[in-house]
């Protein structure tokens, strides 16, 4: 133990609490007896949760399973009864069973824990790391697919950057070359819509489905949506008749079915609900219920393993994404121009507007070869900049109307386009061309709030 570093022995402890643990040589995981003026407590020393802001309590788990904190100022002594180990417990050898003739699905993890186990002794949550772990946590997976798994990143989705999309696209391309029948990408939910859009553009001419999946309730709880989402995602990757990038998440508040949302038309619309993900300005491609895929759209690209993937994994990260709001200072636009950004996506108001006083700044941007794309913060509906004078002025300046693209998708798309060309005409043309379902020709009534 001596060569282990202190941060492990005193995991999460700082300040006074750390001092007292060092003084009595008590480590996280040890069974200890803490004496105070009024009581003597025996239990296992528990790591201090990272997110707590105070550092004056020592946390132990009593024999009855409860944790409690003891204030440092009340501690007279800590004696170690037994040294503990806080190692990851080995998984039991539960026989893994799957259908030999099942389709092969590759699971690529980018972070978060879609499946995990809890160590009740320490309270620690361990992610299910490999295929065996996954089969153990969600045994039904074996009925649908032979899994292979890979841990690509281990980051919160809010920390994902365009360079992660590039790496992810390359990894998926490898899997496709290896001939898998489908790919599942586990992803944190916060920015899953951006990533699914990015991969929709990066993976052109897809032969098999690429399925993004996440969970809104952590996988360490019995009520988690993770298991059903994962199972539905694997079923989609293994059996779906289409070859699209999709997001598979709960369809409703019930544990009944999941939707397959088109990767460029999906958005997280609620901070916490299971059915936070909705298709915007379009319909879900399919739903997965009781192990079956029910198609909801007829126009899809069919799965075809012979189709040759075209990989365009690069994204230009010098694109700004700016919301137009009452009082927005024009300096914001000027700043990006001064900093030599390569493109700006505006999340305008209504049909695609911005305050008139921004016009000079936007004009300068476009004159300096920085494309400006207009989208709407209304979320639902299509841009139309001909209706009001302000819109027409923007069009005259050369602002590109983003049709019915989601602002997030337009942002990702502009990065992707700029990685291929800096020619203003070409950029405009590509932005107005539908590559991956991001632009639809019709806006339909029942798409709204669907």
């Amino acid at each position, binding site marked *: 133990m001596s060569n282990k570093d202190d941060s492990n022995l005193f995991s999460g402890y700082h300040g006074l609490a750390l001092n007292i643990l060092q003084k009595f040589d008590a480590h996280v995981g040890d069974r200890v007896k803490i004496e105070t003026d009024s009581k003597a407590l025996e239990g296992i020393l528990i790591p201090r949760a990272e997110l707590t802001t105070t550092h004056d309590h020592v946390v132990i788990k009593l024999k009855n399973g409860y*944790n409690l904190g003891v204030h440092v100022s009340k501690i007279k002594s800590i004696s170690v009864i037994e040294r503990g180990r806080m190692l990851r417990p080995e998984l039991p050898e539960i026989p893994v069973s799957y259908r030999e003739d099942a389709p092969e699905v590759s699971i690529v993890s980018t972070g978060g824990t879609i499946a995990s186990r809890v160590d009740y002794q320490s309270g620690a949550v361990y992610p299910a790391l490999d295929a065996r772990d996954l089969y153990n946590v969600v045994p039904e997976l074996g009925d649908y697919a032979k899994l292979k798994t890979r841990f690509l990143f281990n980051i919160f989705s809010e920390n994902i950057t365009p360079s992660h999309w590039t790496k992810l696209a390359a990894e998926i391309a490898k899997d496709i070359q290896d001939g898998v029948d489908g790919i599942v990408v586990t992803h944190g939910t916060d920015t899953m819509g951006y990533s699914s859009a990015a991969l929709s553009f990066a993976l052109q001419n897809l032969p098999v489905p690429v399925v993004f999946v996440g969970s809104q309730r952590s996988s*360490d709880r019995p009520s988690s949506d993770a298991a059903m989402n994962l199972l539905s995602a694997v079923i989609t990757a293994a059996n779906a008749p289409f070859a699209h990038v999709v997001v598979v998440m709960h369809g409703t508040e019930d544990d009944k079915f999941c939707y397959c949302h088109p990767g460029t038309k999906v958005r997280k619309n609620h*901070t916490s609900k299971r059915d936070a993900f909705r298709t915007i300005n379009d319909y879900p491609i399919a739903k997965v219920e009781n192990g079956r895929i029910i198609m909801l759209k007829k126009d899809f690209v069919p799965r075809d393993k012979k189709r040759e993937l075209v990989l365009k994994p690069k994204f230009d990260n010098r694109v700004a994404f700016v919301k137009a709001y009452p009082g927005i200072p024009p300096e914001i636009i000027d700043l990006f121009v001064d900093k030599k950004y390569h493109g700006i996506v505006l999340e305008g108001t209504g049909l695609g507007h911005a305050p008139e006083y921004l016009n000079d700044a936007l004009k300068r941007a476009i004159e300096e070869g920085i494309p400006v794309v207009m989208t709407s913060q209304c979320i639902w509906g299509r841009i139309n900049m001909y209706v009001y004078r302000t819109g027409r002025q923007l069009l005259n300046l050369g602002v590109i109307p983003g049709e019915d693209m989601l602002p997030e998708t337009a942002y990702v798309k502009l990065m992707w386009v700029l990685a291929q060309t800096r020619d203003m005409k070409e950029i405009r043309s590509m932005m107005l061309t539908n590559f991956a379902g991001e632009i639809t020709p019709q806006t339909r009534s029942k798409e709204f709030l669907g």
Partner: protein
Amino acid sequence: MAKSLDYEKLGLRVGLEIHQQLDTKSKLFCNCPTVLREDEPDITFVRRLRPTQSELGEIDPAARFEFEKKKLFVYQSYNDTVCLVEHDEEPPHLLDKESLEIALTVALLMNATPVDEVHVMRKIVIDGSNTSGFQRTSIIALGGYITLPDSGKKIGIQTLCLEEDAARKISEDEKTITYRLDRLGIPLIEIATAPDIHTPEEARVVALRIGQLLRSTKRVKRGLGTIRQDINISIKDGAIIEVKGIQKLDLIDKIVENEVKRQVRLLELRDELKKRGLNESMFKSDFVDITDALKDCKSSIIKNTIKHGGVILALKLPKFNGLLGFELQPNYRFGTELAEHVKFWSGLKGLFHTDELPKYGITETDVLKIRELTNASDEDAVVIVAGPKDKCTIALEKVLERAKQALHGVPEETRGGSPDGITHYLRPRPGAARMYPETDVPPTPVTDEMLDNIRKNLPELPEEKYKRFREVYKLNEKLANAMIRSLYIDIFEDLVNKYPSVSPTTIATTFENTLISLRRESIPIENLDDNHFDELFGSLASGKISKEAIPEVLAYLAKNPEKHVDDAIKELKLESITPEELDKIIDAIIAKNKSLIEQRKEKAYGPLMGMVMKQVRGRIDGKIVGERLKEKIKQLIQS
């Protein structure tokens, strides 16, 4: 069986776990009100739960059991009084401050030491009663005691926890359980006593005492279902049996008594089985299909089973002949216990066994066939189940398992109690390690300032109240005792303070005697509210009515809760009269009955009193009437 039990010799140890709902403004982890609803729910959704594995890869036995049932959970909710936190669609908010304050108050009343920092835990519960699959619970204080009022005996308090109540079960069928979310999240205090209780009676006294201390905070909910007791019962060589969810105080001693009987009898059964030379290797899991042999059987259950394509399976229990009828509790045999396991695990309605046969349309000949097919001798018993094959197999596996346990005495398990005080098999005893931290709720420090504040405002203990009621309010012993246990204790004190001219005894008597008499006469006293009582004693204080009028006025108000005391006075002709008015009435009656007085002298008092009272009852103190009348009669005789 009827012999009385020597609890000391049996080594009876009982510990109580008392769960009390708090009467707070909001739930423990969200801002929803703590109200139960009986109107139609406006939201319904369905969920499944999946047990998480513990580090050993073993799923907790209770959790596994629930998962084996693979139930679908239907949740009913209300858009206005339930939010996404109860739906498990939003993370919990911070621990409710008011609830923590009440829990700390109770901790100090019970001499327990509060923790310095409260950590909320997740306790795995996957019967669906919590949408999350766990109950949020936290330890608030440790190591206290309470003192029993009469004996002075101290009973240890091991832990005091603050936790969220579960959802209410509305209905259950084979595939689904329906819960209502109104109750989920209501704060509960859980008080666990040490196993210091040694008789059934003492268990009841301790529960009563804890209930009293809780109510003295005036911040706990009242009424059926707001307090629930779990009872841990063990005897020497027996096992710790947890009897869950007892709502009625009066049932506690009966439950303890019957559970002790059951354990004693199970030990006797064990000894008998050993005497008969039974050992574990004699049990064979040979489930014999006797469907064909019983195809002409007259039993309707068996006929129906065969008609619907089911099977009849039989299992020999070696050396058990006569022991399935072995009584464990009043009208509860070892066979009953096996049947409860069958019902619980397989969903079948029950079982037949040879100790009760021939009966239910199964004839002597059938029994002989059954014995022959299962190779059972006269020493053995045979258990029969009827239904779908998979269910029958599970049923007999469980019968075998339970019969084997009989060799070891009392198996550990969780039981429930029925209204007649009998304990019933509820589920396997949950494993211990089912807790992990609720990472969505940060730890809450308990500061010295908080505790000082609570200490300064501690509620009066019941015995202190009793003393004050005796000394300050001059209530007699019986009335003071009744009052400190009364539901009306708060309004009693309010009224005593508000109307100092009314004697506290009158007010206490009204609540503790008059109301009870009225209820016996089927007067709907539940219609009476605080305002009624306030008006009543206000009218008494101002002399508008007399003490004698109280029962009549209350009866009137109970029947007409929308009316007022003034209406009662008018309608019942209860206006108080002055002694002068009384004199006039007496004079008039005497004038009419002069001859009666001449004949009977002083003895005329009785009939005359009756006549006067007929006119003045409830309008003036009867004592004054008697005095005045006697005086007048005396004057007349002397003149």
